């Protein structure tokens, strides 16, 4: 066997190794989803969705958890979306060349890399203690908003950047001001990409556990939250709580709750991908 043949065999071998590695990841994902669905799907029924937490696994439900997650989702969206879009517009359209804009940019890159639990510590001191919000939905939403703000800003900036220069110059030529151009032309043109980024960021917020534990979200909440100042729990914390218990019944409950959480997260990701694909088709 000469060198050439040997190299060709090595090349082939690596190709199959590459295929194996690539599909191993997907395979693991598949095994994992199948296992969880197998464990949990029979536990999902109307009572599971509408029961309060209980120390008896068969009676325990996720009513407080999923309502808490919806609250957090809504409040975080209300806080983070306008802030994130506004900050991105400033960075992309206004303060582009100053040293301060440069600092903001490095800062956002850094914030995106800060572990989520550190945001929990920040929220604990600033929102829970200093602002006196306690372990409330509002404190949790503010904390998660800060956490996903860098993600929204980065995605929005990418979207704004993609709007062609001709759109801007045409608008200025007609005598429009900067803000009129942004509001009437640039934002509508980049809206679908912005929405995609926001949905992905919110999906991340919905799956977060650690920062909410740190700010004092409770594992056991015996009532459904009615105002933003109420104490709360969310799906991931409920799942964490059930996993930590030794009884097998709670493991099954955790699997069932995971199915619902994953369904929610995947649907959001699906919508984001759908909007992206649709926007791409439109632009062609």
């Amino acid at each position, binding site marked *: 066997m000469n060198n050439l043949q040997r190299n060709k065999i090595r090349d082939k071998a690596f190709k199959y190794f590459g295929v194996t590695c690539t599909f191993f990841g997907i395979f693991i994902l598949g095994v994992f989803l199948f296992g969880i669905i197998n464990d949990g799907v029979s536990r999902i029924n109307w009572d599971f969705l509408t029961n309060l937490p209980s120390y008896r696994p068969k009676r325990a439900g996720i009513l407080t958890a999923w309502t808490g997650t919806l609250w957090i989702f809504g409040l975080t969206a209300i806080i983070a979306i306008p802030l994130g879009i506004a900050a991105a517009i400033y960075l992309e359209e206004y303060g582009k060349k100053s040293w301060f804009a440069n600092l903001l940019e490095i800062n956002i890159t850094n914030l995106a890399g800060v572990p989520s639990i550190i945001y929990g510590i*920040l929220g604990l001191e600033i929102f829970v203690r200093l602002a006196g919000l306690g372990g409330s939905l509002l404190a949790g939403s503010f904390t998660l908003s800060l956490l996903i703000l860098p993600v929204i800003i980065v995605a929005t900036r990418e979207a704004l950047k993609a709007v062609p220069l001709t759109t801007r110059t045409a608008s200025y030529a007609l005598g429009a001001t900067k803000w009129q151009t942004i509001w009437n032309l640039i934002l509508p043109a980049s809206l679908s990409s912005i929405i995609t980024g926001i949905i992905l960021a919110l999906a991340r917020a919905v799956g977060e556990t650690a920062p909410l534990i*740190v700010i004092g979200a409770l594992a056991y909440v015996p009532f459904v939250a009615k105002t933003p100042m109420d104490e709360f729990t969310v799906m991931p914390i409920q799942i964490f709580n059930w*996993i930590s218990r030794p009884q097998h019944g709670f493991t099954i409950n955790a699997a069932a709750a995971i199915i619902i959480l994953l369904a929610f997260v995947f649907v959001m990701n699906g919508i984001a991908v759908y909007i992206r694909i649709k926007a791409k088709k439109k632009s062609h």
Partner: protein
Amino acid sequence: MKSIKEKIIESILFTCALITVLTTLGIIWVLLSQSYSFFSEVSISEFLTDKEWTPLFSQKHFGIMPLVTGTLLTTFIAICVALPMGLTIAVYLNEYAPKGIRKTVKPILEILAAVPTVVYGFFALVVVTPFLQSIIPGLSGFNALSPGIVMGIMIIPFISSLSEDALAAVPKTLREASYGMGATKLQTSFKVLIPAASSGIIASVILALARAIGETMIVAIAAGQQPRLTFDPTVPVETITTYIVQVSMGDVPHGSLEYKTIFAAGITLFALTFLLNNISFWINKRYQQKYE
């Protein structure tokens, strides 16, 4: 009139952008001020050199090292899984896979990073640990190995996607020159493309490292809560992040020394990830200049 409105809008937008700076300052201020009062009671040398971490027991020790080794051990295992897998996937997708496969596989792999981490924790504890126990007899129910491996799977897309981007950014001329010399795809990938894209690949690995160090729920669920100065992957350990969760779930009174320990642990974690993120940012910046 118009220009006043424009000015007002600009200043509102500016204020929103300023919040990101305030967030950073807030993090630094909170961590520093609380750690300062922690370190006025516990000396820094004790913090760095004591071999035990037992702030919640009656016999208190404040050595951060067991938490740091726990964190580094799980992170090391994760990288041992994610680096070879991620890099192989990146090379395969970039050089070997047909375009259609690359386009569908990349987003599917990225789902791995979108799954909430508490779900991975469940996977580690309920599926991976029992499986590993059937292979490794002495493995305890909580250990560093199982969450390390699962964390590695979670960060594969960080390495595979970003490295693939870096490989794809290598100028075509380099690739064609290599093929022109009669090199196989494998030789081209490992002897030309990977060295050329090395800064982008290293940046992606560092980013994945930072992510693994800061990861909380997987280790909190499956690695245990026993701070231990060891690199043995089969016994329970505790990471910095797990400790913060553990204290947050308990009834530690606000303002006590036990309460302040989470800020001392937090500032250690923040320093580690801040350092890694900046190295990655710096490497990436240099690399971008290289081909422009």
